[in-house]
């Protein structure tokens, strides 16, 4: 206790003031370069490299298209009406406040709204999206690609396989009707975001096609088309991203992707999630990366999956597990995705 007493004589305030932090030493940047505000009927495009992971602010715009094709530290969007906004991968949070009748395409770690109405959001969100005092919100799965987008996800430390776009938490639920619903799957992004693929952006090779999207488009909470589902796990290898994509792409006419997640698992976790399958051949691999779990749905799904997996190169096949048995599918799917949810909220 004596040592505490002896320190009392120092002046703590003075000492703290003298200390230099990284923000005291950095170069001064003009915040106006990273702000879009007070625009009416305009079209703003920010190309890759023009924001480069800085914070961004959008405020007080009306009937304006703001397309930010770069990665961002965090962003607030305030007091906008009738706007179309595309936001590149956000490492932290996007916080939308006091906005009305706006459309968004965004990938982020955290998605938050307050005091908004009538938003359409195509979303990829690494954690559970939250809304407060907001009504008439519609959500759909993120669906976008352009040159360098995958690298921007990596720079933002966002996984391409952790998307909770339809799992919304509402802090202010109302009894009559849900404040959030789903965007119709027939919606055309090219129509909703005018000019997204026109000549001014052609050199970025922007695509809004489902099949091209860097984040795989998932069914989420929409009704499943069939009673048959299948669970596939891709174990870590240098090509696991591509293997997972290939499986979903090869199956696209026969099965829909319900959900997909990646997560680090221990041998113990693996045994709990797959109690009836011997996965010991994968024990060595799981320490080197994350396991990608895929839930697919479609008639005769398990057989269709097995057939597709058998067409892949042998070294890829060795990193894949798919439920052979219908009885195992629901348990494995439930345990895998429950485990992901628990880890996410830890």
């Amino acid at each position, binding site marked *: 206790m004596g040592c505490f007493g002896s320190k009392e004589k120092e002046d703590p305030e003075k000492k703290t003031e003298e200390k230099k932090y990284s923000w005291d030493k950095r170069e001064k940047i003009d915040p106006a370069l990273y702000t879009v505000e007070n625009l009416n009927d305009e079209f703003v495009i920010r190309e890759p490299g023009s924001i480069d992971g800085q914070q961004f602010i959008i405020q007080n715009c009306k009937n304006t298209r703001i397309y930010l094709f770069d990665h961002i*530290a*965090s962003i607030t969007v305030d007091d906008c009406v009738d706007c179309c906004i595309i936001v590149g991968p956000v490492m932290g949070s996007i*916080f939308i406040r006091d906005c009305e009748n706006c459309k968004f395409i965004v990938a982020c770690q955290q998605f938050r709204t*307050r005091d908004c109405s009538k938003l359409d959001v195509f979303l990829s969100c690494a954690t559970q999206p939250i809304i407060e005092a907001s009504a008439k919100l519609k959500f759909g799965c993120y669906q976008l690609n352009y040159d360098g987008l995958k690298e921007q996800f990596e720079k933002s430390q966002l996984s391409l396989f952790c998307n909770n776009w339809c799992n919304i938490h509402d802090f202010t639920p109302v009894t009559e009707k849900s404040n959030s619903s789903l965007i119709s799957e027939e919606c055309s992004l090219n129509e909703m975001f005018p000019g997204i693929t026109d000549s001014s952006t052609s050199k970025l090779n922007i695509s809004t096609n489902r099949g091209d999207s860097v984040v795989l488009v998932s069914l989420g909470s929409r009704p499943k088309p069939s009673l048959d589902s299948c669970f596939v796990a891709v174990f870590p290898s240098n090509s696991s991203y591509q293997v997972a994509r290939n499986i979903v792409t090869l199956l696209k006419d026969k099965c829909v992707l319900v959900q997909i997640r990646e997560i680090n698992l221990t041998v113990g976790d693996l045994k709990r999630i797959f109690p009836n399958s011997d996965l010991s051949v994968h024990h060595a691999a799981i320490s080197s990366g994350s396991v990608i779990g895929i839930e697919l749905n479609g008639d005769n799904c398990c057989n269709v999956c097995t057939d597709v997996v058998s067409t892949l190169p042998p070294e890829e096949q060795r990193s894949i597990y798919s439920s052979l048995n219908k009885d195992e599918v629901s348990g494995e799917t439930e345990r895998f995705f429950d485990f992901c949810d628990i880890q996410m909220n830890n």
Partner: protein
Amino acid sequence: MGLLKLLRKLKSESNKELRILLLGLDNAGKTTILKKLASEDINHITPTQGFNIKSVQSQGFKLNVWDIGGQRRIRPYWRNYFENTDVLIYVVDSTDKKRLEETGVELEELVTDEKLSGVPLLVFANKQDLLQAAPASDIADGLSLHTLSGRTYQIQACSALKGEGIQDGLEWVMKTVSKKKK
């Protein structure tokens, strides 16, 4: 004699437990600070729906840190956690100019609550790593900290993401508390 002294010392150390309340608006970075204090991964943090609690050891003290969700709808529940608080840590998003007034109003409510009277206050002016961050002195003005009377307080610039300033804030907490407990 030596053994008795040692036992007494051990006993008094085991009693050195502090209840710390971490409050602030939603999106201020409370959970990131909590996880940073506990040396946990801060890459994926879900917006807090209820509360988080962690116990952290610091300078022989056991700190029980309560991090309570900050959405407007759930702020009325903050007061359920006031009882027996040793230190209040109030977190401000230094980049959120739109809500500086709102966060000031909430802090005013806290410091005028009887249950928190005399409780030392540490304000973290968080997110200093971001380019739109206001300096801690502006945050102090915005919150009218100079009008606080009868309370020990400190404002500390920090970036929970970069891990800067957090330890400095915590050191102030430890100093203040050990002074008080003497």
